[in-house]
């Protein structure tokens, strides 16, 4: 702290000395120019404004210059925002300036498929996320770091799960496929990447480009339909001195809230109501003394004791704990003109809010580029990671939310109960028992190595040959052991699973690049490619039980019994060997006339092993045009508009995400025994399907890029319309066909259209090194998807349009629409309602009476409640989404806020509908709602009833508006002044504090219904690890 104060004082002194001292007619400036991250910048041009005098910085970013008093220096550097500084009247012996990266610079080179292009030459729709933006959000993995930072890219927690190591779902421009998958293709350093995004260390990433339209993705042919995410890792720079950097942070993680369950008295009251209503005519009311003393209420003796003692156990509080995160990254980079290198080593560890949940990643990254002679250059990049995930399936919520709050986790002697808890229908095992040491063990070790090499040969001036090779090997070793006395096994027998997966993939690519300018105005660039990829995944999974010694955990199957080797013919993670191969030919022609008119034509032909003979090959064409209008004469004589470009593209790409062997049909195993003779039989499960083909998506895209005021404000607008045909649909055959497995067919069509807007502005530019600056990035996008065609012979409809009711697909509706009965309140205890219910064939007497239960609309007016009354009650598709990054800087301080919002869209909450936390039976603890009683004739919730496991039409209570605004991160940083830093032997030091996911705002689900996290992909399958927020304290040091 003392050094901070000293530093601050020193800083102030320097600042005032700049402005106040009066000295000779010219001032000497000695200084260093660095990037915002503290890297020295070599070759920065420095001009005295209004003159031709100037200099450039050396390799260490240093310069010296003499300037007239009160002169102004102009600093400019490609890719950075130019800056002007007035020098005043005194010498500046330790001048220091940070240049901000200009993400809007048109000369900036961005990565496209199989090559790079200047931004001004790009004809397709590509979103770029810079290194800086990625660093803004310290995260467990890359996809979390880019969440909310680019238009058209929807990144969400998979099923709302927040456990450490979870991988979010990524959707680019909506959902187009029901079965072939909607995951984009990842390409790392030019080679398709098969691993998990968790394995990529965000600190190793230099940029992320997202290819969205068909022109950009066509070059990936059969794999481009869901968009392509290009990840470029950091490499050394020519002529840069070795630089060592360290960054690290540590912090804590807390749950964002508890699921709103009942306390002891509330639960008792629920039981009384449930028993009273479930046993009509037996009691006079919920307060009938015979009820509480009777046997029907099913109160365990311990619960009775709990009532007497006023006990109210908050099980969630006992389960959750504060998590801890730690991150350390060390980097070394540098280079000479012929050799460049970059080395990074990282350690990341995150402990979650459940005991035993942990994610640890060790990563090592190396890249080397070497020029061998004047025409050959070679390089390699190697990304290696070892991750350990513990407790990925830990989920005590099934027990913690159902456990009776009237009982204690301990028995009368104070010992933890390791058994079914008293009460809760003897179904709920003590959730705390899982946390006893060694009782529940789950661990996944993943080792991944991904290496790419290239050889670049330039035999002639305009011709380049490039060989790219990539090899990826991943080993995933998973094991779990659950003791006999755990929530998993409920006292039956201990179980263990041991699974090993090996994934190998290699890619070989030959590229020819011809680049020529003819008559100065015609630029031609041709890229030709031949590529081959071979991929294989092999998995062995063994399950066994009754392990002789708990101590053996899952390590020695010989100590267990009852081996199981479960197999699913379509799941690469269940005792399968699933190889595939892809052979591709590609050509791309870029033609530019006068830098004004640009044309790109791409053709790719892919052949896949997954398809049946005769169907294996397909050609994917695309074309794009762009017009750099800003270069036209009529725009030359104005200064407001500094960029204007119009783009249009059309093309077709494919989605091959079918598992191997899908065209072959399969038999499935069934065990049986005849006395002591055990057998494993096989029965027909899936039928052969030789007609299966890829699905194709054609996209038309139009866009405008613009810039105003020296590109202080830049932006782009894209509109697109994509048409997916031959959509792969799993058709559930009638059970009577005898083929139980769904069959994949290319029958459907879907469309997506949308608008994307991106704006970046330097709202307040600082005119000195220390002034206040404010810049902002805003993106906004919306997508409207719908199914447009189903199986032509389909004979069922919804609201007059074809509808596949079994699979819940409806023409005119988005994929994933919720199809359910429509609840119109609750049947009330009135004569009118009783008569109406009876008229609809509803039971209105006895313990199955619908009075107090969901009132379902007879939509088809046929006088009964039946399947024909179901309707689309919501869609997971939001009305719009957006994100923003706001950056503020003043003196050494910087503040960055990243936020994103989803507006509209329906979520299905397991808490209120589909799950076990709101059975209203009174057997288990329940979510705390103001349920229906004769005295509380609400239309929102149903009544309690001990005679039913779940209220009828329970799921109709589960739909909520999924809108929210989430503050993704807030970071406050302080960069120490250089003299202070130098004084203690460093090049740069920055301290920061980040609050991650601190607030969720404008969420009705959270604010009104006490749900925890509205961010989930469409539906929750389970009540899982609750959302958390964290506070991190970090340090970046340059040596």
């Amino acid at each position, binding site marked *: 702290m003392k050094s901070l104060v000293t530093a601050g004082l020193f800083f102030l002194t320097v600042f005032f000395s700049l402005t106040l001292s009066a000295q000779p007619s010219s001032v000497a400036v000695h200084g260093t120019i660095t990037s915002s991250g503290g890297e020295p910048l070599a070759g920065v041009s420095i001009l005295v404004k209004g003159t031709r005098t100037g200099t450039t910085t050396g390799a260490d970013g240093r310069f010296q210059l003499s300037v007239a008093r009160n002169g102004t220096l102009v600093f400019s550097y490609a890719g950075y925002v130019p800056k002007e500084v007035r020098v005043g009247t005194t010498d500046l012996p330790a001048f220091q300036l940070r240049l901000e990266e200009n993400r809007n610079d048109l000369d900036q080179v961005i990565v496209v498929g199989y090559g790079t292009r200047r931004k001004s030459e790009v004809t397709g729709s590509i979103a770029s996320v810079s290194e800086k933006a990625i660093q803004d959000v310290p995260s467990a993995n890359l996809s979390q770091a880019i969440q909310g930072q680019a238009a058209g890219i929807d990144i969400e927690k998979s099923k709302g799960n927040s456990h450490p190591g979870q991988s979010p779902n990524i959707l680019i421009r909506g959902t187009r496929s029901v079965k072939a998958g909607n995951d984009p293709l990842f390409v790392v350093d030019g080679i398709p990447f098969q691993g998990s995004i968790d394995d990529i260390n965000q600190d190793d990433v230099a940029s992320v480009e997202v290819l969205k339209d068909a022109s950009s993705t066509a070059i990936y042919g059969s794999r481009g339909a869901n968009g392509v995410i290009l990840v470029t890792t950091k490499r050394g720079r020519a002529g840069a001195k070795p630089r060592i950097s360290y960054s690290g942070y540590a912090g804590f993680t807390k749950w964002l809230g508890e699921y709103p369950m009942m306390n002891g008295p509330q639960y008792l009251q629920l039981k009384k109501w449930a028993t009273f209503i479930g046993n009509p005519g037996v009691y006079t009311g919920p307060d009938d003394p015979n009820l509480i003393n009777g*046997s029907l209420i*099913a109160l*365990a003796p311990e619960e009775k004791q709990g009532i007497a003692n006023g006990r109210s156990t908050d099980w969630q509080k006992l389960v959750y704990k504060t998590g801890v995160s730690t991150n350390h990254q060390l980097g070394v980079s540098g280079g000479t003109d012929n050799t460049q290198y970059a080395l990074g080593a990282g350690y990341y560890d995150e402990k979650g809010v459940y005991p035993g949940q942990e994610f640890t990643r060790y990563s090592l990254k190396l890249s080397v580029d070497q020029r061998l002679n004047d025409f050959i250059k070679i390089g390699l990049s190697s990304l290696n990671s070892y991750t350990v995930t513990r407790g990925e399936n830990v989920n005590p919520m099934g027990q913690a939310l159902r456990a009776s709050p009237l009982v204690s986790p301990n028995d009368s002697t104070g010992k933890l109960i390791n058994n079914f808890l008293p009460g809760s229908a*003897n179904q709920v095992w003590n959730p705390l028992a899982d946390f006893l040491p060694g009782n529940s063990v789950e661990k996944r070790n993943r080792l991944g190595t991904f290496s790419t090499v290239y*050889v670049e*040969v330039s*035999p002639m001036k305009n011709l380049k040959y490039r*060989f790219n090779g990539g090899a990826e090997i991943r080993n995933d070793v998973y094991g779990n052991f659950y003791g*006999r006395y755990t929530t998993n096994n*409920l*006292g*039956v*027998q201990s*179980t263990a699973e041991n699974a090993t997966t090996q994934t190998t993939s290699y890619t070989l*690519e030959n590229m020819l690049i011809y680049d020529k300018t003819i008559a100065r105005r015609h630029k031609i660039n041709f890229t030709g490619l031949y590529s*081959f990829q071979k991929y294989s995944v092999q998995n062995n999974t063994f399950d066994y039980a009754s392990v002789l010694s708990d101590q053996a955990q899952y390590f020695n199957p010989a100590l267990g019994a*009852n081996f199981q080797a479960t*197999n699913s013919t379509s799941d690469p993670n269940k*005792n399968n060997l699933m190889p595939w*191969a892809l*052979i591709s030919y590609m050509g791309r022609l870029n033609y530019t006339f006068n830098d004004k008119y640009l044309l790109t034509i791409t053709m790719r032909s892919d*052949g896949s*092993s997954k398809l049946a003979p005769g169907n*294996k090959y397909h050609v994917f064409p695309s074309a794009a045009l762009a017009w750099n209008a800003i270069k036209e004469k009529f725009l030359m004589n104005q200064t407001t508009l500094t960029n204007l470009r119009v783009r249009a593209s059309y093309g077709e790409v494919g989605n091959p995400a079918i598992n191997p*062997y899908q065209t*072959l*049909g*399969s*038999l499935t195993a069934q065990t*049986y*025994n*005849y*006395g*002591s003779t*055990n*057998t494993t*039989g*096989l*029965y*027909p499960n899936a*039928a052969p399907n030789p007609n299966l083909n890829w699905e194709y998506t054609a996209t038309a895209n139009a866009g405008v890029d613009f810039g105003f005021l020296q590109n202080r404000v830049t932006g782009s607008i894209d509109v697109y319309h994509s048409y997916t045909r031959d959509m792969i649909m799993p*058709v559930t*055959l*009638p*059970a*009577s*066909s*005898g*083929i139980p497995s769904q069959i994949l067919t290319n029958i459907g069509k879907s469309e997506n259209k949308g608008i994307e807007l991106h704006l970046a502005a330097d709202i307040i530019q600082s005119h000195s090194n220390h002034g206040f600056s404010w810049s902002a990035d805003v993106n906004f996008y919306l997508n409207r998807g719908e199914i447009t065609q189903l199986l032509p*012979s*389909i*004979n069922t409809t919804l609201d007059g349009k074809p509808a*596949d009711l*079994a699979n819940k697909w409806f023409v005119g509706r988005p994929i994933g629409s919720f199809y359910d009965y429509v609840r119109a309140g609750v049947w009330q205890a009135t004569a009118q309602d009783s008569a109406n219910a009876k008229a609809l*064939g509803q039971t209105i007497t006895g313990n199955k009476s619908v009075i107090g239960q969901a009132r379902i609309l007879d939509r088809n007016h046929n006088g009964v409640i*039946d399947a024909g009354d179901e309707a689309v009650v919501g869609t997971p598709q939001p009305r719009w989404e957006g994100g923003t990054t706001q950056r503020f800087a003043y003196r050494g301080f910087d503040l960055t806020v990243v936020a994103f919002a989803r507006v509209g869209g329906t979520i299905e909450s397991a808490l209120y509908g589909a799950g076990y936390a709101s059975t209203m039976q009174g057997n288990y603890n329940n979510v705390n709602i103001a349920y229906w009683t004769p005295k509380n004739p609400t239309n929102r919730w149903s009544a309690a009833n001990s*005679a*039913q496991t*779940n209220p*009828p039409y329970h799921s109709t209570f589960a739909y909520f508006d999924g809108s929210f605004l989430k503050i993704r991160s807030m970071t406050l940083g302080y960069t120490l002044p250089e003299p202070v830093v130098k004084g203690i032997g460093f090049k740069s030091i920055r301290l920061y504090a980040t609050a991650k996911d601190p607030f969720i705002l404008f969420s009705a689900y959270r604010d009104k219904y006490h749900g925890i996290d509205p961010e989930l992909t469409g539906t929750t399958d389970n009540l899982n690890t609750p959302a958390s927020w964290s506070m991190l304290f970090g340090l970046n040091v340059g040596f």
Partner: protein
Amino acid sequence: MKMQYRLHVLFSGFLLTLALSCSKQLNEHPNSVVTPDFFSTAQGFQSGLDAAYGGMRNLWGTENLFTITCIGTDEFITGNDGTGNNINYYSSGYTPSDGKLSPIWNSCYTFINDCNGLVDYGPKIANLDSVKRKEMIAEAKFLRANYYFVLVQFWGPVTLNKHFQSTPTTSAQRSPVSDVYDFIVQDLQDAIAGLPASPVGSGVLPGKATAAAARHLLAKVYLTRASSLAAHADDYQNAFTMASGLITSSASLGLGLLPDFGSVYQEGNESNKEVLWTVQHTASLAYNGSPTQNSSGNDNVLVHMWVPKYETFVPGMQRDILDGRPYIRAVPTRWLTDTVFKEKTNDMRYNKTFQTVWLCNNAAGIPKWPNPVPSGVDPSLAGKPKFALGDTACYMPGSDVSDVTIAATRYLLMPPRKYNIQMGPYMKKYIDTRRSDMNAPSIRPVIVWTLSETYLIAAEAAMHLNNLPAAVGYINTIRERAAYPSGNVAAMDITAAQITQDFILDERSRELCGQMTRWWDLVRTHQLLPRVIAHSSDGRANIVGKDTLRPIPTSQIQAVTSGPAYGPMSDPLWN
């Protein structure tokens, strides 16, 4: 020269990768998937047959079949923890999408197709011994008939697939009930001709199909068809001939009634000479059913279904393996325990079917006499434990006792008026003490048919043929056996005057209650509505005519997307 060298480097690079990849790489050679062509080999044929037997576990032993055959009848009503079922209340919540129905429908068709494959490919498989081939095809037909019989009894006119389906179809049509029955009858006649004669005899493994089982099933099929819309004039005669023929030849087949009714259902004795066919389970847990052995999927969960809440309701009791895991899905109706089993002295079957005594197994839970003690109790006992470990903790005498007696009894004394949906007489035919744990599913084979049922089928057919002496003879054989060991045999005999459909149904309850046949029996005899209305507090207010068939599962109706819609429904009321 230099240029040439450069081009040379370039060319080598191309060759390198072209050599590594050619279009052969695009052919699939599955190693981890078995494709349907395996079915046409001898080994594949055997595996298909094993799977067809295994499919039976999806029916007998599951909660699904138990629920829709045992509860919702005159015998049982829903127990405390089964109240989520609407199906047995016949209430408005019972819809075609009821989760108990589609698993049965789906399993039957999956394994019918399996059997179709066996029957179709069987004659063509090379390298298969001709005797073995004939026997295996006969087994497949026996199993196929069984699956179809389940379908036709629940759903009436159903889709009849006679041949292997290997191409996907999205259309389906229903066949008349008569066609389905004709197919079943033909299959069983073929099976009888090709199967080994008896489960008792050399080389027949437990659980295997035999001619004896097929004869029993065929008798039951004839009897069922006889009262259906597809009735043939000679159905009762054929049922009688088939059943009485099996009874007559039983001795020569090594089959026969056991002297003691109780030992038929005794744990570990499932291969006794009275048992015609079982669905197998095993202590080798990996082959016993669900992979997790958590009482799901195709586990045998009958051991749990009737277990009452003794652990919460009876002081001095805790859960143990003998008394079981209280699922309490069903409790007997008072009519069953009090009226059908009114005779509890000479007829030993009540006490061999129901557990009425629980012995204290939890010292910590033993209750103490209050102070002052109830009247009739020695005052010096005040504050002392009522009983000790191993003593009776609960007893259900089956007849009424006064509240004063109850208060003065040291254990929990439960007369019938105290029975409730949590605690009552416990159907103990499925007790399994050799399970790995008190919460584990059963490892016992499920007994599907016994020879005693053959007697009852013969008697029922004889009654319809007006051959009352024969009916009396078969019934009295069963009833006299029920007196073993201490009952008065003569007192058990009935006369021709007593033979009625109602009497035979009651006798079936006494002999077979809890054995997954009751709902079908009531439908066959057109007694479902009258008896549910008379005896079931669950269903009496709601049951209507359409309930004599189950509704076609919604999933089936919705999946028929080409051709005519799947209908009409089982009953026009089901829509």
